[in-house]
C-alpha cells in the first residue's frame, strides 16, 4: 500500500542490470564532461548521442521524455531567458527589449549554460529512473558508505508517502466527526489543529518505533554485515567505470591545457 517516493521504473534492460555505482559514475561523468569540456557543442552532443540513446537502451524513454518536458525543459528554458537577457557580454546586438540587449554572444552563452543544466538534471533523472533507491544505498553501504547516511536517504523516501496516507486518514476521521474542511477559509484555518496534532504525534512515535526496530537488528553494530540481497558487479561494470573516469580526466586536462 505504501509506495516509495521514487522515480524508479521496474523494467529489464541492460542499464537496469548495471551495478548502481556504475550508473552513479556515469551520471557524474556526463555532468563533469558537460561542464568542463572546452568545446562549445559538448553538452548539446551529450544529450543527443548519450542521454537520449541511453534512455532508449534502458527502456525508460517514455518516462524520461515526460519528465524532461514537464520538469527539465521549463527550468532550463527559464535559465536560458535569464542568461540571454542579463548577460552583459558581446557587441553584436540582435534585438533590444527596453534597456536589455540580447547579443549573439549572450545567446550563445545562455544556450550552453542551459544545456549544461539540462545535461545535469536529465542525467540524474535517467539514473533515478533505472536505479532502485534501496539497491543503490545497499551497494554504497557495502562499499563503505556509513549506514546512518543510507538510512536518512531511504527513510525519507519512505516516510513522505506514509505521512501522506496518514494525513488522508486523519482528515477522514475528523470529517467523520463533523469537521468542515470544505467551506469558508476561516473555518478551514480553524481546522488545522485537529489535523496537524495527530499527524505530528503519530509521526514522532513512528520514528521512534522504526529506530527501535532497526536497532533490534543490530543497526549500529560495528561488525561487518552480510547482505541477503546480492548486487551484481561484473567485469564490464569495472571497465565502464574506468573508461568513464579516464574520459573525465581527459576533459578536465583539456580544459586546463587550453585555458
Amino acid at each position, binding site marked *: 500500500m505504501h509506495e516509495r517516493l521514487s522515480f524508479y521504473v521496474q523494467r529489464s534492460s541492460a542499464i537496469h542490470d548495471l551495478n548502481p555505482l556504475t550508473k552513479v559514475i556515469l551520471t557524474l561523468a556526463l555532468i563533469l564532461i558537460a561542464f568542463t569540456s572546452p568545446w562549445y557543442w559538448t553538452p548539446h552532443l551529450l544529450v543527443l548521442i548519450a542521454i537520449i540513446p541511453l534512455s532508449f537502451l534502458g527502456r525508460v524513454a517514455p518516462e524520461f521524455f515526460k519528465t524532461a518536458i514537464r520538469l527539465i525543459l521549463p527550468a532550463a528554458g527559464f535559465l536560458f531567458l535569464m542568461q540571454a537577457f542579463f548577460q552583459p557580454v558581446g557587441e553584436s546586438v540582435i534585438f533590444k527589449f527596453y534597456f536589455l540587449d540580447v547579443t549573439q554572444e549572450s545567446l550563445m552563452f545562455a544556450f550552453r549554460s542551459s544545456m549544461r543544466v539540462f545535461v545535469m538534471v536529465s542525467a540524474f533523472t535517467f539514473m533515478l529512473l533505472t536505479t532502485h533507491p534501496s539497491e543503490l544505498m545497499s551497494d554504497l553501504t557495502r562499499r563503505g558508505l556509513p549506514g546512518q547516511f543510507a538510512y536518512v536517504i531511504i527513510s525519507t523516501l519512505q516516510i513522505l508517502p506514509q505521512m501522506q496516507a*496518514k494525513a488522508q*486518514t*486523519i482528515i*477522514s*476521521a*475528523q*470529517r*467523520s*466527526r*463533523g*469537521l*468542515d*474542511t*470544505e467551506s469558508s477559509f476561516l473555518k478551514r484555518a480553524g481546522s488545522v*489543529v*485537529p489535523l496537524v*496534532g*495527530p499527524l505530528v*504525534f*503519530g509521526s514522532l*512515535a513512528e520514528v521512534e518505533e522504526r529506530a527501535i526496530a532497526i536497532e533490534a537488528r543490530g543497526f549500529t553494530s560495528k561488525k561487518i554485515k552480510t547482505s541477503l540481497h546480492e548486487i551484481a558487479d561484473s567485469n564490464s561494470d569495472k571497465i565502464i567505470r574506468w573508461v568513464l573516469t579516464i574520459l573525465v580526466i581527459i576533459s578536465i586536462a583539456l580544459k586546463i591545457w587550453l585555458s
Partner: protein
Amino acid sequence: MKIEIKDLRFTYPTGLDALRGISLSIEAGEQVAIVGQNGAGKTTLVRHFNGLLQPTLGSVMIGDWDTKKYSVAKLASRVGYVFQNPDEQLFSKDVGAEVKFGPRNLGYSKEKIDGLVTRALALTELSDKTETNPYDLSPTWRKMVALASVIAMDTPIVIFDEPTTGQDAANVARIAHVIAELRREGKTVITITHDIDFCAENFERVIALANGQVLLDGAAADVLGQEEILAQTYVDPPQLTRLGKRLGLKETVRNQEEFLNALS
C-alpha cells in the same frame, strides 16, 4: 434510521474494483457485524455510509438523504464513525475537550452538549479522566476516548471499525457494554470485526463479504453455521459453534449459554 444500499459499485482510482454490486438494507436499531478477509471491501463499504467515499455506480441512502448530495460534515449528524486507530483522531489537551469536539461541530446547544458529553464519558467509564491528556492514557483507554468522542455526537447510526483489535479482555467487555447500551437506546450499530467470538456474542445480524460482494447475510446463528461458505472468505466460525457441529447438535450455537442449553 434506515440505510438503503442499491447496487453499490466502487472502483478505486488505481483501478481496483473494491465493491462489485452490493444491495443491502439495514433497519433502524439493527446490530450488524461485517466480517470477511482483508481486502474483501468491508472498510470501503462502510466509508460509503458517511460519504467519505462516493459510489462509482449505485446509491446509498441514509434515511431520506442520498450520500451523494450531502457533505461528510453534514452526514456526521446521522452517522458516527469510530476509526480503527484512536491516535489518528485525538488532538485535544484533555479528554473532556476531545469528546466535546464532535457535538460542537454539529452545532448543538451548550446544555445538550454537556449532557451528551457526560453520558458518553459515563458509558465509556471515563468520567474520572476528563482532565487527563489522551496521550497520557494507555492505548486501550485512548480507544475508549475515541469511542466516547463519537458516541457523544448522538447519531442514530454508529459505525465501529475493528473496535476490539489489540484490546485486552476487560476493554472488550467494556466495548460490548457500550454496544449493548446503544442497542437499548434504539441506535443502529454496524461493526467491522475479525474477532468472531465478539461478533457471535454481540450481534444479531452478520454480513460476510468476499471480493466486494455479499457472500452471506442473515441472522448470526444462520450465517455462522455455514462453515464451508465462510471458509471462502477465510472466516472460521466461533470455536463453540464448530464444537457444537462436531457433537451433532441440531441448532447452531453461538455462545456458552446456547451451547449449554443445547447439551442439556
